């Protein structure tokens, strides 16, 4: 076939026309859609875009029933971007650079450099002066969370996502194994060692094979938790004299490394410690291989029990046994998990609409929607108690909405569905009550030091790499001493410590 210029031209025009018409159609249809929404009047229904994380795949769809119900009750139209929690920080950083933040954006680390930069440049609304008009914001979020999320200028640049300050990740051991081996739940790291040793050597699952071990945990969780247990300090900063000192460099922190190296060399920890992924860490417990994990008490029925019960029918929910404290230490939560920030690109009127949305959302009747669902669909009322259908709630991604607004009102906790869960709930409230007396808060949260901001990410990485090597026995403890000595004489480190101490004193210490 001879290709004439005319044919070329015809093909080209066709291509152009097709692509143009495709563009035209999509543009036209979206205009139509927004036209439809506008007809309801912007003042009646606030249109608010939200970006937050989701642990679920697939995320809640746009016509999700829970979302519809919340929109109805808060009189809003929500445009939610659900981002997988594995990639959220990357996505957020890129969004921060683009400068086009959604109206309500979940900031995972309100003291991270990128967010702090935006605040400094005036790109984020200071919501402090407005808060008094929204009472539920004060009631639905723990006081400590409002306090701790203040920037160094003492102002709040976002609504903290409330969390129960007693609900922290700590050691959890299998009670059925402890009972079988005739051991009491450990109270000290010495007793813990004995228990873990028995889990490994004394065949707690009774199958005659040496296929069990003590504790399954990822390397960073493991070193972090045990450093805190040994130093008795939550987070990285310890009050000493009238200033602060960097906790990972305390002599007790070194002891924790020696302790973990011993656990590893005696095979009480997973052998592939450094290369484990989060799911593998959990699989060891679920697969009847490990006798302990480091996690929150509430994860038992959600993550671990369903799988383990299939393998071990005698396993009960309350066998997921949280240790109250070790060596008298248990960390205290900060009462928040990230904040929801509102960019300055939003006009003041809309800012008020957004605050109103969250305020309304925190009313127990509204928050109840994502906890219990809709009557007749997700729950039924029996003797005045709401009986929920967990599978149905899960299917409709109900708990995902906690990633936007999460009320800490205990009345919103669903009642335990069966006696086993009731037993676990009682155990949990007992442990939490005890923990709330002993727990140690993180005094470093929100303290700002420009030098530390520059130095710490790098230093933390060096520490994390070296501790990993020491735990698996690749480097001797003397390598740790070298790092500590070298860093302590680094002028930047000295300046960081001084600045953190200053910031701490300025806040008035507590």
């Amino acid at each position, binding site marked *: 076939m001879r290709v004439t210029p005319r044919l*070329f031209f015809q093909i080209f025009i066709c291509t152009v026309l097709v692509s143009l018409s495709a563009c035209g159609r999509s543009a036209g249809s979206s205009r139509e859609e927004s036209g439809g929404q506008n007809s309801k009047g912007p003042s009646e229904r606030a249109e608010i875009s939200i970006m937050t994380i989701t642990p679920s795949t697939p995320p809640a769809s746009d016509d999700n029933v829970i979302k519809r119900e919340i929109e109805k009750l808060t009189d809003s139209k929500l445009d939610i971007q659900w981002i997988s929690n594995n990639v959220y920080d990357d996505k957020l950083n890129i969004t921060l650079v683009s400068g086009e933040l959604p109206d309500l954006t979940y900031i995972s680390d309100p003291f991270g*450099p990128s967010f702090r930069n935006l605040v400094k440049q005036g790109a984020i609304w200071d919501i402090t002066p407005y808060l008094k008009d929204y009472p539920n914001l004060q009631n639905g979020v723990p006081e400590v969370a409002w306090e701790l999320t203040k920037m160094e200028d003492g102002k709040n640049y976002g609504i903290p996502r409330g969390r129960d300050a007693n609900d922290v990740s700590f050691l959890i051991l299998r009670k059925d194994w402890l009972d079988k081996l005739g051991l009491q739940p450990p109270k000290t790291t010495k007793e813990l060692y004995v228990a873990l040793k028995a889990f490994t050597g004394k065949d707690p699952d009774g199958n005659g094979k040496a296929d069990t071990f003590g504790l399954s945990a990822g390397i960073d969780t493991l070193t972090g938790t045990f450093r805190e247990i040994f130093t008795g300090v939550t987070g990285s900063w310890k009050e000493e004299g009238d200033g602060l000192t960097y906790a990972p460099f305390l002599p007790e922190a070194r002891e924790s490394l020696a302790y973990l190296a011993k656990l590893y060399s005696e095979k009480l920890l997973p052998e*592939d410690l450094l290369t484990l992924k989060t799911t593998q860490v959990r699989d060891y417990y679920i697969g009847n291989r490990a006798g302990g994990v480091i996690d929150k008490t509430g994860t038992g029925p959600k993550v671990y029990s369903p799988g383990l019960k299939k393998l071990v029918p005698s396993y009960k929910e309350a066998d997921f046994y949280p240790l109250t404290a070790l060596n008298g230490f248990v960390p205290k939560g900060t009462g928040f998990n990230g904040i929801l920030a509102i960019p300055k690109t939003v006009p003041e009127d809309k800012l008020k609409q957004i605050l109103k949305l969250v305020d309304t959302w925190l009313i127990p009747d509204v928050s109840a929607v994502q906890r219990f669902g809709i009557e007749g669909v997700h729950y039924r009322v029996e003797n005045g108690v709401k009986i929920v259908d967990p599978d149905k709630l899960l299917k409709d991604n109900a708990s995902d909405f906690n990633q936007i607004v999460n009320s800490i009102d205990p009345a919103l906790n669903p009642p335990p569905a069966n006696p086993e869960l009731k037993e676990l709930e009682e155990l949990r409230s007992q442990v939490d009550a005890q923990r709330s007396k002993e727990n140690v808060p993180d005094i470093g949260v929100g303290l700002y030091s420009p030098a530390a901001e520059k130095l710490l990410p790098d230093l933390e990485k060096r520490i994390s790499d070296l501790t990993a*090597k020491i735990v698996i026995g690749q480097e001797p403890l003397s390598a740790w001493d070298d790092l500590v000595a070298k860093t302590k004489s680094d002028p930047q480190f000295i300046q960081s410590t001084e600045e953190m101490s200053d910031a701490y004193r300025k806040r008035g210490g507590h």
Partner: protein
Amino acid sequence: MDQAETMTDNHPAYRSKGESMSKRTYIHRLVRDIGRNPYLYLLAMPGILFFIVFKYIPMWGTLMAFQDYSPFAGMEGSHWVGLEHFRTFFATPDFGMLLRNTLAINVLNLVFFFPLPIALALLLNEVRSGAYKRLVQSVLYLPHFLSWVILAGLTFTLFAKGEGLVNHLLEAAGYDRIDILTNPHSFWIVITLQSMWKDAGWGTIVFLAAMAGVDPQLYEAAKMDGAGRFRQMWHVTLPALRSVIVVLLILRLGDLMDVGFEQVFLMYNGAVSNVAEVFDTYVYRIGIQRGEFSYSTAIGLFKSVVGLVLVLLSNKLANKWGNGGIF
């Protein structure tokens, strides 16, 4: 007629004349050529636009390497710091480590991985049965289509110290378990072997295509002269591949500063951090995770400049040695 003329213009023999041509006559001729073949240029428009919009315009973003870029202030508002970021980067103690790791992984790659597809293609070329050859080829291509995530998972399953299959077998056979994945001494080797396993088969495609283009008369003539299989391979097949090998080598040298980010990132763990951190993972850590955009752009720019210099240099050498570079 037009086509014939264009061809002679591009012919190497005429190139020197074209290069000495002044800019004005060049534009003049371009305009004349557009007048003659308007449809061809019209057809090329979408492609040209694509490159302008998605490749050339974004290149302005590179300027942030010389700024203290702040997202809020934008490119116009951020203030200029000159070569500050480059100075900081070269002064950091990490620089030597990053350079060493990147070069080591790439040199290993060049020495062990690069010749492998050539050898494999030569072997495949000698297979007599067509059906068998096609089968082997397909099997060899397959690993290329596995993502790095899957490959990393496979590596863990096979070589993990505690749960890995290889170590289970070793133990059953009475040997000691070996530590491969958390061992700084074996990391580079693991990375190289992974690349070889994944892409050696895929790399043969280009060479097999070049071999298919060899005139059979050459082989016949060689046979008449008494050349055996090896002699034919040495004197006919390999010389036919020479220009392809040189072109690929030049392109490969341009990537000397790049290491596949995914691969290294997935195999990374605390124990191998000293040998596993390369420019690409460093840029990710500093740029995306810590939000130091200008600094990481500067590192990226440094990498690209080194790559460009290497390509130009090797191309020049190839031309000098009479092998015909890529341009």
